[in-house]
């Protein structure tokens, strides 16, 4: 009797394997990489202006007591186009948005802003993704809610959709 039961062990293992495979294939793990810097100070950085005539961006700009949205975008990033009108709407509602343009050229940034609107206060240029990497960001677009003391409060990965506006506004309010 005991031997018989022992023979069922491989079958049970197979069933377990099939169940796990089924589960993971049906609901693949979330492969979004979140920054671990939520709740921590914004890393120090100084970025030159992404286009002539505009202010560059440095981390010191984030400690004036007002919460802000830090948007990481690029002119070559397609989802950023979808996000552009939402950022304009946020700006219309009084949100201060600072930006970092990743791996971009001044002419391309200017063209992008002409075409899709310019909700940004300052735009720094991050030619070699260094500041993006120091923020724990893994792609464009991404946005960070930074409080008035320069602490990262919230990270949004991917384009901000109209449905995300209440969340972003609530996080900015919490960061006040």
């Amino acid at each position, binding site marked *: 009797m005991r031997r018989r039961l022992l023979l069922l062990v491989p079958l049970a293992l197979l069933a377990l394997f099939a169940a796990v495979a089924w589960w993971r294939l049906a609901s693949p793990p979330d492969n979004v*990489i979140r920054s671990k810097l939520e709740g921590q100070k914004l890393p120090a950085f100084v970025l030159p202006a992404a286009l002539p005539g505009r202010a560059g961006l440095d981390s010191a700009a984030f400690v004036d007591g007002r919460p802000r949205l830090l948007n990481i975008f690029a002119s070559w990033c397609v989802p950023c186009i979808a996000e552009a009108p939402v950022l304009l709407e946020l700006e219309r509602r009084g949100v201060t948005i600072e930006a970092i343009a990743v*791996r971009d050229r001044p002419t391309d940034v200017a063209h992008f802003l002409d075409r899709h609107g310019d909700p940004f206060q300052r735009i720094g240029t991050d030619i070699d*993704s260094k500041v993006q990497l120091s923020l724990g960001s*893994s792609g464009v677009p991404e946005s960070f809610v930074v409080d008035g003391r320069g602490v990262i409060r919230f990270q949004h990965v991917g384009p901000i959709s109209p449905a995300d506006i209440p969340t972003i506004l609530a996080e900015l309010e919490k960061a006040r």
Partner: protein
Amino acid sequence: MIARFALLLMLAAPALADSNLPPSEWADRQLPDARQEAAATALMEDIRCLVCQGQSVADSDAELAGDMRALIRERIAAGERPEAVRAWLVERYGDWVSFEPPMKPLTWPLWLGPLAILAAGAWLAARKLKRPK
């Protein structure tokens, strides 16, 4: 037919998810100091690409992986120890970014599992191989 297909393939442009800028200076260039380059390469093979998540930054063609290689080379050329660079990345992206899992309670099964399975196998084999009395 095949020639036409080949021609079509040549004309096809990959989906553009990359910038128009050239790769970073140190993305694909070796450091002049061979020892530093060896240390940097070893670390690159151990750091996961954020875009092609199964690949190391040494293997990945993604632009961000190039920028991460450049970052690793520059930091090591500046005299930083590879483990310090790894820690800097882990601080930002979590243990996930390193292919070398740390030893902590959550990862004990990962480290001890194979040993336990080996021991169980040895025990089974020993029992089977024992001469019947």
